[in-house]
């Protein structure tokens, strides 16, 4: 995902008005950019508050700045600069955070990013992007110029597989339909979409047909697609590598309640904010019940309880 981002960014930087500000990160990702664009690439050092403030100033003076770091250091550390200087002032700064969910699993909780978009959802004017695979990153980068205000892109790390072939239909702000079915609606955001697709295939063999909507844009939240696709479904399932209570599930729940829709909802995400242990990404995910088999079983049990 990082590589896909860097490749698209390098193309954008050719016209001269786009800048990359990094918080001293990007080893093995930005070497090409660093070499080619000596003025447009700035290592801002380990000083994230200043990095966001400078980016805001550059945007106020007509430049487009991409600001890059690991998610906690670009979201939590300089949150007030993000709030006041970038979002309230509604300037086109592009924040790119690497390390979605447990991407940096074994680095420990300081590097985990499981509450970022829940927090960012409360900020005005900000578009929140949560792509699921490298091709979605490329597609979103191609469209990012159309976003007039600030944007945040939540990247995983490296080596993520391509998950589907509908990229040409991706439009920022609109949930992307991955599959169409009659019984169950899956909503997913980020790389966990891969697990949702696998589970949908298993359920397909059991005779259930599943619609999958990919929320590659978290904010603005595409309520229209949710409402359209939830009609006549027996079960709705949310998938995210983020805290449930402030995540995709909570957005879905709010939408359903405000539209007086009563529907059985199963939620897959992170149930507690902080972990005492670390391990591989798969280990961390399974600790929170987010491995394929576990989720598949839970869905089957719920379907039986619901007497489908």
């Amino acid at each position: 995902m990082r590589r896909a981002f860097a490749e698209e960014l390098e193309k954008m930087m050719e016209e001269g008005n786009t800048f990359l500000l990094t918080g001293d990160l990007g080893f093995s990702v930005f070497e090409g950019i660093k070499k080619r664009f000596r003025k447009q690439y700035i290592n801002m050092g380990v000083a994230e508050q200043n990095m966001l403030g400078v980016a805001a100033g550059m945007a106020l003076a007509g430049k487009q700045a991409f600001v890059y770091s690991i998610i906690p250091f670009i979201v939590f550390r300089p949150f007030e600069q993000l709030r006041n200087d970038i979002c309230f002032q509604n300037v086109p700064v592009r924040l790119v955070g690497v390390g979605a969910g447990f991407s940096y699993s074994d680095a420990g909780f300081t590097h985990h990013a499981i509450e970022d978009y829940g927090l960012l959802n409360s900020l005005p004017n900000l578009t929140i992007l949560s792509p699921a695979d490298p091709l979605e990153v490329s597609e979103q980068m191609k469209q990012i110029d159309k976003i007039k205000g600030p944007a945040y892109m939540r990247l995983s790390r490296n080596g993520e597989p391509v998950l589907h072939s509908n990229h040409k239909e991706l439009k920022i702000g609109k949930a992307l339909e991955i599959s169409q079915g009659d019984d169950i609606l899956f909503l997913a955001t980020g790389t966990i979409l891969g697990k949702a697709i696998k589970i949908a295939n298993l359920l397909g063999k059991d005779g259930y047909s599943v619609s999958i909507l990919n929320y590659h844009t978290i904010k603005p939240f595409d309520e229209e697609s949710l409402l359209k696709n939830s009609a006549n479904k027996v079960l709705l399932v949310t998938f995210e590598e983020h805290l449930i209570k402030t995540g995709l599930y909570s957005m879905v729940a709010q939408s359903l309640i405000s539209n007086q829709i009563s529907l059985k909802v199963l939620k897959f995400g992170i149930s507690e904010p902080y972990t005492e242990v670390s391990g591989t990404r798969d280990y961390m995910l399974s600790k929170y019940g987010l491995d394929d088999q576990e989720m598949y079983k839970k869905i089957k049990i719920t379907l039986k309880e619901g007497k489908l």
Partner: protein
Amino acid sequence: MQEIANEIRIDLVKLHNRTHTSHIGSEFSAIDIMVELYYDVMDITPENFSSNDRDYFILSKGHSAPALYEILYRRGFFGKVMMDQYGENGSVLAEHPKRGIPGIDVSTGSLGHGLSIASGIAHSLKLSKMKGKVYVLLSDGECQEGSTLEAANFAGRMNLDNLVAIVDNNGLQGYDATSDIQRIDSVITKFVSSGWSHRTVNGHDFEQMGREFHSIPFTANKSSLLVADTVKGKGVREMENRLEWHYKSPSDIELHGFMEQLGGLV
């Protein structure tokens, strides 16, 4: 210039008496600096404000906003009706300035943000080969913010010779003497060792300030730090160097005496 500043002080006494809002002491220490900048130094007008080919001013110590509003109103950025709405329900003129108000480039209010934003603008102007300078007014207390020092490091390293940071060194911050918290010399040392040039000036002496501002950059290829020694509450004996005027507003009883000292009563 002294007359303009005095006139504004008189209007601010009335404004704070009417609205019971805070920070008149910090406005009175900063007003002469801002009058000097807007009337003698900077090229910012209602006509060129929508272009990038001009100077920029950022009030990083956002709590002195009413003094800035009084200047912008007098310079024709907005009318009397808007000025008179300060402190009223529904007014866009809050106690801290917001981008979108005619003449305001940057929203401020939380200390420690202005120097970074100013550096970003200054760097962009240089890249676009624009001649404008960026002036940012900081409070002395604000130099305690880590982000201010992060920005000082960045500006120094990028040789932003079009960037001017002015510190309103009135010696009193929110709840104590600034020197009890951090000595101004330590601020100067940090800026200078980050690559800035520095001068100190009497922040109530227009001639001195004019001389310094017209010799910017103080040193070629360096950002300029001007420490302006000022008096909190300058111009009204009862307010001068008194911490409580960070918060208090003149009462109806005080109004008469204050106006008299400022020559506002015939």
